[in-house]
């Protein structure tokens, strides 16, 4: 680099190249100057370079320099004063805005600011839901639904009127999936029309599903209760079974009832589901569920209801005698701790037996 800058300097002088330039612009300390001068005294080339640099500096210094005259300076000062006046006016507005903006007075007190923000957050978090609940439920938006599909507030199936009401308007899929049922109310009209049902759900938003059981939304909510029976109270499950009972001819309902018999933790609910199934068509799934309850249910009342239903079906010719069924009945006839069940099992074998011959 330095070699390129000073191509005419001998190799031994390269270490002085930069110092020569620094000395010419008075950036070299006293000791450095002494060394350069000592070298230049014995090196004609470096002495010439130093002289050249100094000459160039003098050359530059000889040029005319622009100097601001008094009038121009005064004019600039006057312009600056005007600009400062305008700046002060803007500054007043800015200071006023800063005083009003909360960020400005919160910043110097971080602890106070944090506490205040937490308090505001808590207030909003507690008060707003209450206000929303108060006004939201008080002014429930009711929407009469027509026909359609899907589980949403606008997705009622069936032709009868359903009222889906919630405080925030339409319910989402996740609302339906995650909602807890807090209560089921229904009013029987006394005639043949199905009862009017109102299912109260607790989702992210309060939700009420109302209508008749024949309505798709109501039926789906009730089926959900039975399918996810571990999430709901026994009272709710009993109500759901009771309300779905008239619709036991439907495959969805029948399967949900079968599932309830097999999996519900509460014997009363299982019993109620068995009663509901007793009126349904004698499908294989119903028969298998009855047999499973007869064999496996720990509650004698459930087992009795199961054998009663099986007997009724056998008497009515709704059930075929197959080796599996007969084996279960024989096993119950011999081993069930309940005398009634053993007797009823024997009777059922008898009912099914003669047909087996033919």
């Amino acid at each position, binding site marked *: 680099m330095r070699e390129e*800058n000073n191509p005419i300097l001998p190799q031994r002088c390269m270490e002085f190249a*930069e110092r020569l*330039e*620094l000395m010419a*612009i008075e*950036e070299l300390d006293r000791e450095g100057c002494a060394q350069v001068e000592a070298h230049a005294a014995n090196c004609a080339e470096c002495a010439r370079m130093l002289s050249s640099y100094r*000459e*160039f*500096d003098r*050359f*530059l*210094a*000889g*040029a*005319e*320099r*622009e*100097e*601001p*005259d008094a009038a*121009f*300076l005064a*004019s*600039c*000062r006057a*312009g*600056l*004063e005007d*600009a*400062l006046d305008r*700046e*002060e006016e803007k500054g007043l507005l800015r200071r006023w805005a800063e005083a009003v903006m909360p960020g400005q007075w919160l910043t110097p007190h971080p602890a106070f600011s944090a506490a205040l923000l937490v308090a505001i957050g808590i207030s909003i978090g507690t008060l707003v839901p209450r206000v929303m609940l108060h006004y939201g439920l008080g002014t429930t938006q009711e929407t009469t639904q027509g026909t359609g599909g899907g589980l949403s507030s606008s997705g009622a199936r069936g032709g009868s009127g359903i009222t889906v009401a919630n405080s925030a308007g339409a319910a989402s899929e996740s609302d339906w999936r995650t909602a807890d049922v807090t209560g089921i109310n229904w009013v029987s009209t006394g005639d043949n029309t199905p009862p009017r049902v109102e299912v109260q759900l607790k989702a992210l938003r309060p939700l009420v599903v109302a209508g008749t059981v024949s309505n798709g939304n109501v039926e789906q909510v009730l089926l959900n209760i039975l399918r996810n029976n571990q999430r709901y109270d026994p009272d709710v499950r009993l109500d759901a079974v009771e309300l779905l009972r008239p619709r036991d001819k439907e495959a969805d309902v029948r399967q949900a009832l079968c599932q309830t018999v097999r999996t519900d933790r509460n014997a009363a609910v299982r019993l109620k589901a068995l009663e509901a199934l007793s009126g349904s068509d004698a499908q294989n799934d119903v028969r298998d569920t009855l047999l499973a309850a007869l064999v496996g249910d720990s509650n004698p009342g459930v087992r009795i209801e199961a054998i009663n239903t099986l007997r009724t079906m056998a008497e009515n010719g709704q059930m075929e005698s197959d080796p599996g069924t007969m084996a279960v009945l024989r096993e119950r006839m011999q081993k069930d701790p309940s005398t009634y069940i053993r007797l009823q099992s024997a009777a059922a074998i008898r009912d099914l037996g003669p047909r087996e011959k033919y």
Partner: protein
Amino acid sequence: MGMSVALAGDARQAAVKLAEEQALVRNSQAGDRLAFEELVRRYDREVLRLAMNLVHRSEDARDIYQESFLRVYRNLHRFRFECSFYTWLYRIVTNVALDHLRRRTSRREDQAPGTAGDGETEPGTRDFFDRQPEQRASPEQQLLGQELGQHIAGALDRLSPRERMVFELKHYQGLKLRAIGDMLGTSEETVKNSLFRATRKLRARLEAIR
């Protein structure tokens, strides 16, 4: 003995001046407009001179002057006396001037050749040289100085904004490389390299008229 007394007197004067300046800055920070104007008057001639010699146009120099002091006014509350007010002020002035030079360079690149950079027709330059005759000893010297100034100004115009700034601060403002580095927010070594590069270019361009 006499020299040491003179040096002590200079130091005392410098200390008084520094204390006065610090008081002015503090009062300005507290919103004293008169104190700020006093600060401006202490330095504005040097600022305007630097601006004029960098841009060679009165209006541009006025813009740099005004923008610089407005920035000082707006940001004076941030000044923490970690360096001298002079250094802090010049840091702002050099930034404003560099921005101006860069904008002008890019504008010039966008324009057709021959439409910009014609220093001889610029009113600021002409006004300045028109103002100078009474300061010159002889017409020959005056003419020589004018021509030389024009040549040097033309050569300086072809430097990069940063090289030009470093050259101006070193050769015409008489600042040390370290001080220039502080003002430009860079190292002394970088400033030195910029200066040497600028000097080499100028030497090459002005060789013919020396």
